[in-house]
């Protein structure tokens, strides 16, 4: 699978990242690095412990990472979650969480598939 196909699958913006990061190898390096990024797990953990402030910071980081990787769909989900948690709206966040979870898993699976060739 090509990088471009991966971006199609996860509804990211390949053209955008290509323009910004310039080199294919560099894009690949960071996309693969996303598998090791812990901000999503950090958010889940803080959420389960009821620590909204830490959860906010973690999902905020996730949002920034997605933005940099042009993962537009996940970025959008993370953004919604960020705003809910920023406002301290736990109820709203609980509603959004399943969507974010699904979207995140899709990304991870697609990237793994790409990694395996």
């Amino acid at each position, binding site marked *: 699978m090509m990088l471009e196909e991966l971006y199609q699958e996860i509804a990211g913006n390949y053209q*955008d*990242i290509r*323009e*910004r990061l310039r080199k294919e190898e*560099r894009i690949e*390096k960071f996309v693969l690095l996303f598998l090791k990024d812990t901000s999503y797990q950090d958010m889940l953990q803080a959420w389960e412990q009821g620590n909204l402030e830490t959860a906010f910071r973690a999902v905020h980081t996730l949002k*920034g990472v997605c933005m940099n990787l042009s993962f537009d769909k996940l970025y959008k989900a993370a953004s919604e979650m960020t705003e809910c948690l920023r406002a301290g709206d736990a109820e709203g966040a609980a509603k959004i969480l399943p969507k974010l979870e699904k979207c995140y898993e899709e990304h991870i699976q697609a990237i793994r598939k790409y990694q395996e060739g």
Partner: protein
Amino acid sequence: MYDKRKINKILIVDDSEMNRAILADMLSEQYEILEADNGIAAVQLLHSYGTEISLVLLDIVMPEMDGFEVLAMMSRYHWIEEIPVIMISAENSHSVVERAYELGATDYISRPFDEVIVCRRVINTIMLYSKQKKLISMVADQMYESEKSNTLMVSILSHIVEFRNGESGLHVLHIGTMTELLLKRLREKTDAYDLDTAKISMISKAAAFHDIGKISISENILNKPGRLTEEEFEIMKTHSAVGADMLENLPLHKDEPLVKVAYEICRWHHERYDGRGYPDGLKGEEIPISAQAVSLADAYDALISERVYKKAFSHEKALSMILNGECGSFHPLLLECLSDIADHIQEKLSINSLNRGSEKEIHNIVERLLSHKELASSNRTLSMLEEERIKFQFFASMASEIQFEYSVVPSMITISDWGAEKLGISRFIVNPSENQELLSIISKEKMIELDQILRCTTPDSPIVEYEVELNVEGATRFSRIISRALWSHGDKTEYSGAIGKIVDIQEEQKELKRLKELASMDPLTNLLNGAYAKKEIIHMLYTYPENEYALIIFDLDYFKTVNNERGHVFGDRVLKYLAERLKSNIRTDDLAARIGGDEFLLFVRYDRNIEQAVSRIFSAMTGEYDGFKLSVSMGIAKTTTEGRKYSDLYHCADLALFAAKRKGQGCYVFYDKKNCTSNAPTTISPIDPSFEE
């Protein structure tokens, strides 16, 4: 090989490793990259690298310490003036960006990162800053040059006037210094006059012109030794308006701020607050504050200087004359300022006089330094600061001491490496009064108390020694915190934090306690000694007025015989034995002391039946020790009948003991006026002469 292009270090601060990696990847070809994953780590790196860092890329939302707080720290340490900061954040809201700029950020890059934009902005900012640094130093040098010639012109001109007046030549300098002191103090008291440092400095300089109008007054009048006639005085009075006209009619420069201030001063430095001055009879706030300050300074200096028509008055006399209104009326607030600075005036004026001699030399040194053009002044200051920082860190690391630095804004404590390790806490502690790590070492109350004490110091005596129990490595340790409050010297003196160190005084305290105990003990019997017992008894009588006590003195009958027949070593053993029995027969609150060779004192509290208690102690003291028959004679005085004065109680007990001896020994007697004569000799032979009444 040394890569010249990598000479610049860039610090990337972002809590996401991924984001740091992307930026590092974009920049690492040209720059050396330092990374920090939160604000505290960033401040730590800034501490250790200082201005070696050429640029900071700073995220806003981070754990521990966020980007705004990092900016605040950077401005506190003045890094922000030398190290540009570019904010990077997914926050694009206007207010966030605005706040970052307000706190001193140079630029803002929003996510997602674009390689071209990131590299371009970084290069631009670094170049801009280095250009700016060069420009600043060039301007500073030029300003220094022009400043120097300005001051020179001012002093030449004013000295011409002065020498013509036959004045000492110090008058102009004194007035400048006094004016500056008065206005600085005034600024601390009120914001009403919009006095900043530059304005005060300008007024003080312009003060030199106050008497230039005297150039038009004939020398006969100026230097007349006696009183001026009314006519002469009228001529003399024209000097203020004349001087002002001279400045107003300057063909060039009359719009310069310095000239304008000088005009005010010339024209109105003889006006008085109540409107009785000249030339215009202005009143109160109609008189510019510059002229008011100079006129007060002029009045003071005229009084303490010798003139052809008068002798010099003392500083104290001059002050009281002015404050009593003998020199006309002045602004009440300025008079307050004069009283406030009264103690410093003489010192400051004498410093200024001395400086004149060395002025030339200072100029020479400065000139020599300035001839090294590549070493421009601001860079020089920087490199000196850098050197100081390295020195400080070096000594701190060698010292094996807990050293700390506290800043009020942002509220933060920085602890030396060694100290942090010793205490087992972080080097950087934000918001200390809420920090759990720190609170496990020192209680919140103590921390707040120390802060209060520091705030109550003054810039003149800023050092505080504070003793407190700290919890170090799981044990309570007596510690002394020696700390110095830092007072900022900006426009207003303000408490900005403190530095200090923590010294362990546990051993010292222990030793002190041991010495205290030692000083209170009789070495043979381990009972209290007489002097200490006396102090304690007086203390108890005073502290517990509700309690009734009995003071008992007793001695061992036939003790002399024991010493003579069986030797002193045996005698000592008898005394020790007796002391042990005594100790086991009194309550812990009671006092037992050895006050003479074989004399003892007891001080016991009693409720009702003192007879019974005394009888019990008496029989405990009676018996046998190693073939020696123990027998004592006792005298007792009670607070219920003899009052609460120590000397009375002691005297009565002594008399009662004498009565017991007379009765044939081996008995006890309560003091009573009838059975105890007051002319009996004292039975006590003190060990300690200071114990005698």
